[in-house]
């Protein structure tokens, strides 16, 4: 099953019909980590990352899984590199928690902390990576739109992935939108209208492609309100309360046309 097939399916069906359980090999998700785990389901041939698996005190308003789902669906429509997400429920010892599963997209994935230091070196790794950095530019517009707060130089929320059988198709992929879209109450009472450039990795800013960034800014400004409404309001109340739906909807619709102003300096300064 290809990434594209799964992404299309998960965009059309927000709730996973499968029962997810932790994988035996957690491959880097070690003891005491409460935020998420690698998971699998009978009849599904791929590994996913499931989170959250422990509720925060403010889970009802933070709604981490729903924010991940909304970001994934918006990115799918805009053709941007965010893994597909479906919603599910995770059985904790204390009861059920609203969770999401995010597709692990590539057999080989390198964490940003490893990528950012390898780029400048004349290695096979460095040479291949240099080709894909410029393609990340649209994500600056996307992260600004959804007020992503967790990228910058975060050690592993950005990864470089590829299939060894199809190296030319390698991509830098942006993960973890749990802390976005005014999760910190900053979008309340019109706060969403304060749009500033999202924190973005310095290495990606160095390779910024002005044309690609401008194209993404335009696509976001023209993205239909009806699609935003469909993506936000179809989240079940178990994952996203009506109050949070309204706040996110208002923010995303209102911010679409404000992204250009927030990135004006970047669009003018960068040369390609």
């Amino acid at each position, binding site marked *: 099953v290809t990434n594209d097939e799964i992404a299309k399916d998960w965009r059309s069906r927000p709730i996973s019909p499968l029962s997810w359980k932790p994988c*035996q090999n957690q491959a880097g998700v070690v003891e005491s980590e409460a935020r998420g785990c690698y998971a699998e389901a009978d009849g599904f041939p791929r590994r996913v990352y499931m989170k959250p698996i422990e509720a925060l005190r403010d889970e009802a308003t933070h709604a981490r899984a729903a924010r991940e789902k909304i970001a994934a669906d918006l990115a799918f429509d805009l053709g941007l590199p965010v893994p597909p997400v479906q919603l599910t429920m995770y059985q904790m010892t204390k009861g059920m928690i609203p969770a999401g599963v995010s597709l692990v997209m*590539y057999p080989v994935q390198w964490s940003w*902390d490893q990528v950012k230091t390898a780029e400048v070196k004349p290695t096979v790794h460095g040479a291949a990576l240099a080709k894909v950095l410029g393609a990340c530019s649209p994500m600056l517009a996307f992260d600004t739109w959804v007020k992503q707060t967790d990228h910058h130089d975060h050690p592993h929320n950005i990864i470089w992935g590829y299939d060894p059988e199809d190296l030319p198709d390698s991509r830098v992929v942006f993960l973890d939108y749990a802390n976005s879209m005014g999760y910190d109450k900053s979008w309340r009472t019109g706060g969403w209208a304060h749009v500033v450039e999202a924190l973005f990795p310095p290495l990606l800013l160095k390779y910024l492609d002005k044309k690609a960034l401008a194209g993404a800014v335009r696509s976001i400004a023209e993205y239909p309100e009806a699609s935003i409404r469909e993506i936000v309001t179809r989240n079940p109340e178990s994952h996203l309360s009506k109050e949070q739906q309204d706040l996110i909807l208002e923010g995303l619709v209102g911010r679409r046309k404000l992204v250009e102003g927030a990135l004006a300096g970047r669009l003018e300064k960068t040369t390609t």
Partner: protein
Amino acid sequence: MIRIIYRYAVLSFCKDLTDPRGESVPVGIAGVGTHSPTWGFWCYTTKQQPGDQSGLDLDAISKSVLNDLPSLLERQILQGIEAVSPKEFVSWLHERFRNSLHVSSIHKGILEFDPRDGSELMSRLVREFTELYKRHVIVQPASDEEGVFSEAPNIELRQFAASEALV
């Protein structure tokens, strides 16, 4: 008699993260230890050429990154020693090694002995980390001479001025 407490991480590589049954192969260990609030050491132990010796049929990029693992680890350790306390170091390292090349487990150990001098202390620590390497990384020892030779670890162990003692 001195008492050295250390914490270390096992680093592993998973060839196919998309496969729910994909296995991780250990390629090295890295850790820190202290015997007083001001004296610490850090150490990493890897295969000589982890990319060539992983036993996996790797793509050129994975091979290149893994063969560069000793210098990658040294860079990360020096950065971590500056950034966080010995108590936080292994967790910090875990945050840096996720995805294909990842921290697969975290351990703690205690060593009590009576060294004659600093040189004996360092030799004993090298032996200790060589044993840990054999336990975690050399899962199936080679039977032939060439294989045994290649199992000799690439080890780096240095002292540093710790900011606190591990407990």
